[in-house]
């Protein structure tokens, strides 16, 4: 429960922000439109479609959106709210920015200015990290404030995944319960779901690039449906709806949605043993590491020796190669040292952008290792879910050219995996700047195709999401 002091403080902030809405709107216009040169595609149609639904709902609203930059909430607010709707002050959302990100910026004057701006923009500072009593109490207090605002017919803006997405992809497989919990406690609340992204936004950034062109899709959905008895059910439905909107967004985009890669390493190939002799002298091993591994990976490998070290080294390489291919599909070129793999957590980080991707070692036997990596487009899979990447590793027949075999086998595999592709002959392999693409009916399919070969083996993968 909120104390009287908290309630009075919220009311005071609400009054001030209602008064300040016009100056802030003008400030937003000047900074976003004129200074940064941002443009929104089909903004009128977007506003019209959502306001038709919003005008019918006078109750509380939870704004929920994907999160890629630090100014997403401003962008979404501007994309959705025309000046004529500013009089409906209850719909201007309250936000919960991370306290450490905004409330200690710069020197004393700058800090005060930012704090005042945040206050006027209806911000309630939130503290994400920390398991101490103060931090937990802080979070609970913010939750109670949000609940109070909603119960009083207001709106709150909460990013369902909390921080900015680490790979630029909204993943519905890891729902968080906060919004479900709020919806369960506030009768009549609705979720305003928005997916907004710039056409040049590949990963998370501080701000979108200048002169960015944004497109957005949105929907207003029920906060609680009959039969939803726990927060997770509600959250999962919200996450699924945002994922659908994400698919709609990518359907109209020039960016490839499905970006995945795979790589196979033949552990018995003379090349592999020559590059990394399992019993090689420390100087040779160090040289091999220094070209391909980061300091953290090298430290991890130093705990192993002989054959075990040999296998783990190649697992790193397979994971990194798979990640390079996944990144290349999004237009980002990289090399071994740009990537840092964590084989235990099954994550790989592209260091220049801090983009974090999922990896999976799908084949790990005496003869070979095979890895897949997903940047975006679907789920990599786990013990319970098969995931959205289909892959196969095959032995290259004697005399066949491995790259040719991989290409042909990949088309056969795609056809065999599909109900409506009768024969692989109706598919053709082409490439776009070195990235393999499959043509069907004359159109490039966004399947995130990836090819690999090493020694006796060829591997290929594609995405079915």
């Amino acid at each position, binding site marked *: 429960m909120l104390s009287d002091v908290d309630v009075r403080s919220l009311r005071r902030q609400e009054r001030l922000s209602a008064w300040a809405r016009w100056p802030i709107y003008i400030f937003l216009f000047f900074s976003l439109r004129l200074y940064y040169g941002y443009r929104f595609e089909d903004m009128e149609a977007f506003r019209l479609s959502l306001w038709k639904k919003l005008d019918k709902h006078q109750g509380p609203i939870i704004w929920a959106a994907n999160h890629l930059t630090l100014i997403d909430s401003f962008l979404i607010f501007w994309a959705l709210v025309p000046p004529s709707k500013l009089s409906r002050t209850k719909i201007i959302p309250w936000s919960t920015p991370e306290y*450490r*990100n905004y*409330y*200690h*910026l*710069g*020197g*004393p004057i*700058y*800090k005060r200015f930012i704090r005042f701006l945040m206050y006027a923009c209806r911000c309630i500072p939130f503290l994400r990290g920390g398991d101490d009593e103060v931090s937990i109490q802080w979070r609970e207090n913010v939750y109670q404030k949000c609940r109070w605002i909603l119960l009083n017919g207001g709106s709150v803006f909460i990013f369902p995944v909390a921080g900015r997405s680490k790979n630029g992809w909204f993943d519905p497989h890891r729902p968080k319960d906060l919004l479900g919990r709020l919806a369960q406690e506030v009768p009549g609340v609705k979720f305003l779901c928005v997916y907004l992204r710039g056409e*040049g936004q*590949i990963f998370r*950034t*501080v*701000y979108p*690039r200048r002169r960015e062109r944004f497109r957005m899709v949105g929907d207003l959905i029920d906060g609680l449906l009959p039969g939803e008895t726990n927060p997770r059910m509600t959250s999962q439905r919200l996450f699924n709806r945002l994922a659908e909107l994400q698919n709609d967004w990518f359907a109209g985009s020039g960016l490839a949605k499905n970006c995945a890669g795979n790589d196979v*390493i033949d552990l018995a190939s003379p*090349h592999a043993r*020559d*590059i990394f002799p399992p019993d090689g002298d420390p100087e040779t091993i160090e040289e*091999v590491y220094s*070209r*391909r591994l980061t300091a953290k990976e090298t430290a991890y490998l130093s705990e192993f020796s002989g054959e075990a070290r040999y296998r783990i080294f190649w697992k790193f390489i397979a994971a990194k*190669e798979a990640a*390079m291919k996944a990144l290349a599909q999004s*237009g*980002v*070129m*990289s*090399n*071994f*040292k*740009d990537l840092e793999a964590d084989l235990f957590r099954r994550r790989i980080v592209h*260091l*220049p*952008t*801090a983009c974090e991707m999922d990896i999976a070692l799908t084949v790990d036997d005496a003869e070979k290792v095979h890895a897949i990596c997903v940047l975006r487009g679907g789920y990599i899979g786990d013990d319970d879910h098969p995931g959205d990447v289909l892959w196969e590793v095959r032995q290259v027949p004697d005399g066949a*050219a*491995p*790259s*040719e075999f991989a290409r042909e086998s990949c088309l056969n595999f795609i056809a065999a995996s599909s109900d409506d592709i*009768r*024969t692989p*002959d*109706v*598919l*053709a*392999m*082409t*490439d776009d*700047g*070195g990235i393999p693409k499959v*043509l*069907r*009916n*004359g*159109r*490039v399919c966004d399947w995130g195709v990836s090819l690999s*070969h*090493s020694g006796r083996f060829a591997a290929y993968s594609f995405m079915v999401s």
Partner: protein
Amino acid sequence: MAFKRREAPTVEAVDLNTISPKDTETRIIQGVKKYATNEGNWSRADANTPFLGSIIGMGIESSNLADVTMSIERQFLTRKTNRVPVNGGSEFRLEDGELGKLRILDGQDATAATPGLSVKMLMDLGHMPKDEGYLSGVVSYAYIVAVGDGYRMNDGLKKAVEKVQRLSGAEREEAFMNLKTLIAKAREYVSLLGDIKALAENRRKTYENDRQTVDNLRQELSMIGEKLKGATASGDSGQVATLRSEETSIRSRLKMGEQRYKISEQVVRESAGRKAVEEAKVREISTILSQTITDAQRVA
């Protein structure tokens, strides 16, 4: 009984200032033999044969690219051996000193995609004297990529033609649609190769991505700077330490991003001009591709 292991043959390293660029190129090609999987292309390899790819390249796998660099390091000696620390950290640059082992630093080999470009890299880094005569015969990285794309396209088009010829009925129709797309794409590519300005513009996509990465990292850095100011003013030493380590990590990411940005900038710059050798390569692939387009149109 103890056996003596046979000793690996030692490569006799040569001072880069005592051999010609052509000899350097030959040694580089010989050195990568064990990584090559396309014997025919490797045995015919010259300054402009790509290490990667099997159509015109030597068929070296991408995981072996680092070994190509290491093979180059093993074969040559240089006077650039004096490590001079940069920015007071662990980074260093190499300056003239005693004759010693060649060392190619991280990222310096990023565009060494052919033996000729590897020699150019050695010249650019000051390990051997510049030889304009030799360099005039080396195709730039940008054009190696552009010409390679053309050969892959040609290969794909030929395969699509074979498929259409072999199929009948509805399947032929579907394969035919693919062929039409590939013909259009190939035609577009031939005209792109013919237009230097358009080609440079086409290569800007990666450049723009890399520029955005660098811009973003600079923004992150400035944001951390502001947070540091705030944390220092409020005397929160724990937060200051966390922010300092975050700042270090962003600085190293920025360095990597800048390296990549430099390469993509170089690609755009190189695409905007054309040497005689590049013109010849472009003409060669354009002719091949045009011929395949004509054959494909006949089938279509």
